[in-house]
């Protein structure tokens, strides 16, 4: 039984920390895009727009029904064989697109549930003062749905951050990729993967703290 090489781990911490901005940037861009796309898909589903609704249903089914890694490989290594122009897309972009599509499908379902979770009386009240469906959604329903969906969406953000670790398979060196390459030279796998695990963990814990603070604030605003 060998002991942990603590000096090596201490030396590795700044190296992995150096990749936190890259991981967070990828995750944040994917989060914003997935949120926008997910909201759009949810609205299509709620309003049951003909034809588009069927397309959206298939889209959501596919991206929820296949592993993210498979989607990333399909997009990055597979599709360029069909459309050579796609090979111009670099690993970071491909990873962001993959994360966006994958998580938009999940968020669409959460947002749809949140919209449907807004009390019927709210729709009726909005209708009684002569609002159009678009106005009702924008002014009355979505703000309330956002509050219902917020905790779940924050959880997806945390999920996205952890999922960026798959980007290494597309040649992106983020936190996991950096740890993997360091371990290849030192053979100290336990140390390298422990360091990266703990840094992910602290990152997510910090975000959970922010999440709880935000939730308290939101509840305060709507306290009756």
């Amino acid at each position, binding site marked *: 039984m*060998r002991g942990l090489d603590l000096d090596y781990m201490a*030396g590795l911490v700044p*190296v992995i920390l*150096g990749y936190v901005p890259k991981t967070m940037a990828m995750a944040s861009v994917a989060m914003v895009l997935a949120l926008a796309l997910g909201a759009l898909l949810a609205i299509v589903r709620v309003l049951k727009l003909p034809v588009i609704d069927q397309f959206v249903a298939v889209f959501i089914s596919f991206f929820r029904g296949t592993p993210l890694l498979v989607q990333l490989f399909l997009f*990055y*290594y597979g599709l*360029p*064989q069909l459309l*050579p122009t*796609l*090979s111009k897309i*670099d*690993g970071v972009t491909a990873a962001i697109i993959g994360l966006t599509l994958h998580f938009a499908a999940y968020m669409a379902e959460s947002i749809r549930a949140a919209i449907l979770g807004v009390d019927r009386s709210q729709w009726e009240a909005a209708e009684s003062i002569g609002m159009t469906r678009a106005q009702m959604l924008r002014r009355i329903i979505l703000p309330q749905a956002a509050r219902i969906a917020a905790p779940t969406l924050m959880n997806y953000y945390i999920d996205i951050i952890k999922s960026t670790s798959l980007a*290494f*398979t*597309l*040649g992106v*060196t983020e936190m996991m*990729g*950096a740890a*993997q*390459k*360091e*371990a*290849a*030279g*030192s*053979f*100290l*796998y336990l140390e390298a993967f422990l360091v990266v695990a703990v840094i992910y963990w602290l990152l997510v814990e910090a975000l959970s703290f922010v999440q709880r603070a935000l939730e308290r604030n939101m509840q305060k605003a709507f306290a009756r």
Partner: protein
Amino acid sequence: MLKPLFAALALTAASLAPVSAETIRVGMSGGYFPFTFTEQDKLQGFEVDFMNAIGEVTGDEIEFVTMSFSGQVGALESNRIDTIANQLTITPEREAKFVFTQPYVYDGAQVVVREGNEVGINSTDDLSGKSVAVNLGSNFEELLRGLPNAADIDIRTYESNIEQDVALGRVDAFVMDRVSTAQVIAKSPAPLEQAGQPFSEIRNALPFRNDEAGIAMRDKVDAAITTLKENGKLAEISQKWLDADVTRPAGEAAPAN
């Protein structure tokens, strides 16, 4: 008005100019000691020194792109990288698809087992009934599948960390190139040893796309490899990382300088 004229002039100038400096995008895994790995975030190894030396000779910019080994061939085909410096072995299948430079490493396939060789592997015949780890998409996977007793070998493919699984006793052996195994055994804390003699001569070279631009780049890089072989720089890089000169076929003497 003048735009087409300028464009024509620029084109003529470009075709008349000598081969200008370009950027060579080099794919590597960053996870194959001692050829490509990082230490304190610095990419290094035999392949890194080798490609930088090529860049010095040709005057080109060398840009390293790290990606998993199994994705590299696809990345080369789809023009995401220009070549692969990851001890890529020349095989007929790969030659049908890409154009190669001359070999810059001559090596053999080596079986490695846990220290003590309790599994009793001394030749490839002994691999029957054993589990053997190889890197996914590597030539060693092909070599194993080409053995007469391949049907009796439990071949397991990995993206990385194969020596770790042998050290932990999860698989009986792994196969890698002989020079790397010597370095891995020396450097890794894992209890490992070479089993038997190398069982296949392999020659490693740089692949390029089989189109006009790819062939032009191949020719330029190939000439640089000749230069590095003649001036002893390649042998020097080999000694530095492998404690041996593996850059010429066994039995061939170094050129007298």
